[in-house]
């Protein structure tokens, strides 16, 4: 069964590669050609898209869909697929999508190393299908009438929407209250620390931690939610969701030519992010190098997730001058104090000493950078009628001990922004390298 499905996945990808050479305007159904799985979408044109994307150049091609005209040579257009297979996991350096569904899971008390590995294989197959715009298993509307369908079906008819699924392993997977549940303790990376308590933290245990995480990013919220829902379903009995977070409105960009989107405070923040195309910078600050910690993390990255609540009501009655002083940049253009354009190099000395930009800038942190993929969130209102809104901060780095931790210590100590925000959730995960080819599975290097 495993091998067969893997062959089918492989066949689909080969078919897609072949198909890319076929003349344009030929209607193709990727999965149909491959003979396995089901396709949610009909690929209508391949002109100019015959460029295999992704660092390793393995896997599917960017699929142009009805919704979008193919853009010659451009990375996956809105609605297309992001290659699942590659040197690094997608969803880290991939251009940030519009929507997020992030889920942290705990492994069930009854699960074993074997059942966990079996689930991860199933997850990998499902992830490869969903990121390719295909249905899970035998699909959402086929199979026996008496049995529930394999796929939940709410993404039927939708394109892949640049869905990426990124997996991470939390500290408690390796060592939970001193117990080595799955024989993985010796493989815990030193860099996968228990994050220290930062000043001002008000962490809710029900929004923190987790043995595993999956970050689903897509341009369509329905596609991201569908992905987490189906993985959670497959995982039932082996893992259960500890907490999850929906996000909208990306607050940072990994495509630095673009304008940085605004956060819930109406400001551009984190304009100096690492570009997904800047391989040198990614190698320096994001990807774990060979020999750094356990072998299974080579090519991976460490993810810090923080739920940052914003006191938007008090912020909104703060004067424009104070708002700008807090950030150290203008609200309109987003330029640093003393500059005129968003991406102009800031003059840190021109800002108040406790301005957010001044404290967070790489120049104040020994040049060290982290790759941010944060999203805004609004989870309705709290019992006091206050908007439960803020930033779901996600940052990837080569080593959190030199990345997020010293930066956050500095910010927690003196950032003017602290008056208007509070960190209420926190988690840390080790995200391994990418799946290079069909047949490999999430966690194979760790469990193998």
């Amino acid at each position, binding site marked *: 069964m495993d091998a067969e499905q893997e062959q089918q996945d492989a066949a689909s990808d080969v078919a897609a590669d072949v198909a890319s050479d076929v003349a344009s305007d030929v209607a193709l159904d990727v999965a149909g050609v491959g003979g396995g799985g089901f396709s949610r979408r009909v690929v209508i044109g391949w002109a100019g898209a015959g460029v295999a994307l992704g660092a390793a150049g393995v896997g599917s091609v960017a699929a142009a869909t009805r919704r979008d005209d193919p853009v010659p040579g451009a990375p996956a257009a809105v609605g297309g697929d992001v290659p699942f297979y590659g040197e690094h996991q997608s969803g880290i350096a991939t251009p940030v999508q519009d929507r997020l569904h992030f889920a942290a899971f705990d492994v069930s008390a009854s699960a074993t190393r074997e059942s966990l590995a079996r689930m991860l294989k199933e997850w990998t197959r499902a992830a490869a299908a969903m990121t390719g715009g295909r249905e899970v298993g035998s699909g959402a509307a086929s199979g026996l009438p008496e049995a529930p369908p394999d796929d939940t079906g709410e993404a039927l008819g939708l394109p892949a929407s640049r869905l990426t699924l990124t997996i991470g392993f939390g500290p408690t997977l390796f060592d939970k209250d001193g117990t080595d549940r799955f024989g993985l303790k010796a493989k815990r990376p030193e860099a996968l620390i228990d994050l220290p308590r930062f000043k001002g933290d008000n962490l809710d245990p029900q929004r923190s931690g987790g043995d595993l995480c999956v970050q689903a990013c897509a341009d369509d919220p329905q596609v991201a939610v569908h992905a987490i829902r189906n993985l959670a379903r497959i995982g*039932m009995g082996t893992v259960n969701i500890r907490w999850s977070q929906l996000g909208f409105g990306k607050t940072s960009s990994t495509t630095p030519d673009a304008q940085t989107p605004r956060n819930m405070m109406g400001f551009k923040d984190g304009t100096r992010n690492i570009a997904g195309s800047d391989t040198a910078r990614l190698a320096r600050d994001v990807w774990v190098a060979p020999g750094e910690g356990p072998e299974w993390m080579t090519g991976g990255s460490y993810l810090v997730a923080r739920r940052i609540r914003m006191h938007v009501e008090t912020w909104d009655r703060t004067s424009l001058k104070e708002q700008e002083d807090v950030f150290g940049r203008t609200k309109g253009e987003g330029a640093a104090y003393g500059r005129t354009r968003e991406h102009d190099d800031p003059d840190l000395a021109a800002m108040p000493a406790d301005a957010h930009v001044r404290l967070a800038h790489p120049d104040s942190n020994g040049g060290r950078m982290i790759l941010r993929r944060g999203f805004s969130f609004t989870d309705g209102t709290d019992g006091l009628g206050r908007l439960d809104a803020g930033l779901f901060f996600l940052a990837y780095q080569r080593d959190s001990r030199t990345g997020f931790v010293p930066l956050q210590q500095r910010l927690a100590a003196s950032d003017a922004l602290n008056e208007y925000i509070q960190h209420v959730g926190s988690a840390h995960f080790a995200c391994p390298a990418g799946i290079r080819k069909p047949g490999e599975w999430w966690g194979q290097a760790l469990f193998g």
Partner: protein
Amino acid sequence: MSARRSTAAMLLTLAVASAALAGCSQKKDDKASSDAVKVNATDTACEVSKTTFPAGHVVLDIANKGSKTTEVYVYAEGDKIVTERENIGPGTKASITAEIKAGSYEIACKPGMVGDGIRQKITVTGGEGSAAAADPRLTAAVGAYRTYAQEQADATIPAVEAFAAAVKGGDVEKAKSLFAPSRTGWERTEPVAESFGDVDPKTDTREDGLEPGQEWTGWHRLEKSLWADGKIGDEEKRLADQLVADLKDWQKKIPEAEITATGMANGAKELLDEVATGKVTGEEDRYSHTDLADFAANVEGAKKAYELLKPVAAEKDAELAKTLDAEFTALEGLLAKYKQADASYTSYDKVTEAERKTFSDAVNALAEPLSKLAAAVSPK
């Protein structure tokens, strides 16, 4: 349990039974008589003149040649009654006319009107619906499950009568202690119980499940009087009697329930769904907080259906059977931790949010693979 579940697991159709029963006292014409199946019933035998006959209007001419009053039944697969005639005295004759579709049946004579009877297999040929023969193990499973459902209903009556007696005696504390046990049989076989659309709304509706204009009767109405109001009045005493009457009505209907193997499998899953949506949240028994007793009964009923289907399911999907065995054990183990010395369960308002999450996870861990059981026993 909701008042009106449209997804009645057992896909109830009562039409067959009522049509079949209609002809009990019909006077047979000559043509029918010549085609009639003769049944010679004695105290030790049940002889049938032919065991294969065509579908359609079938007449059974019964002669009781024994010394005891007897009754004769025609059973379809899974011991579903197609037609029956009771009280056939020694030395007397009776006839039954029934519309019978093609398929396999059993004729049973029950001397003394007790027990499973002396059985003869018969085959009704031709016409539509002569489907491929079902797996005899599944047929047996359906029959055994029907017996189980009947046993649970039979056992419920004295339990609910005791509860009603306490209510009528004005003994609030005693009535409280008998409330949860009176529900066990019902909760174990809830998908069958619910499938009788007219019984469930009278016995097991919660206040928020009432239709406009519907009178609130049944267990939860009395639960509210006992726990929230702490008193018993004339109205409650009347409702206690009505609950007994309604449940006796349910007890009588079990033989008519249409039960299939896939229906049993999905019924087991639905029992867990009941837990996942109503019990794990504490909604079901919001006044008495006896949710864990219902929860345990639901799991027991689901386990029974699974155990009966397991021989076939394990053959088709060994991994699934292994998973289900493990998850049933895990959930039973979790429930056992909350069982008190007197066999009652911890009051659900004493179960913390974190513990409820653990219950919820364990229920999902069982219900999700249980949803695959129907496919594993499907003939396709």
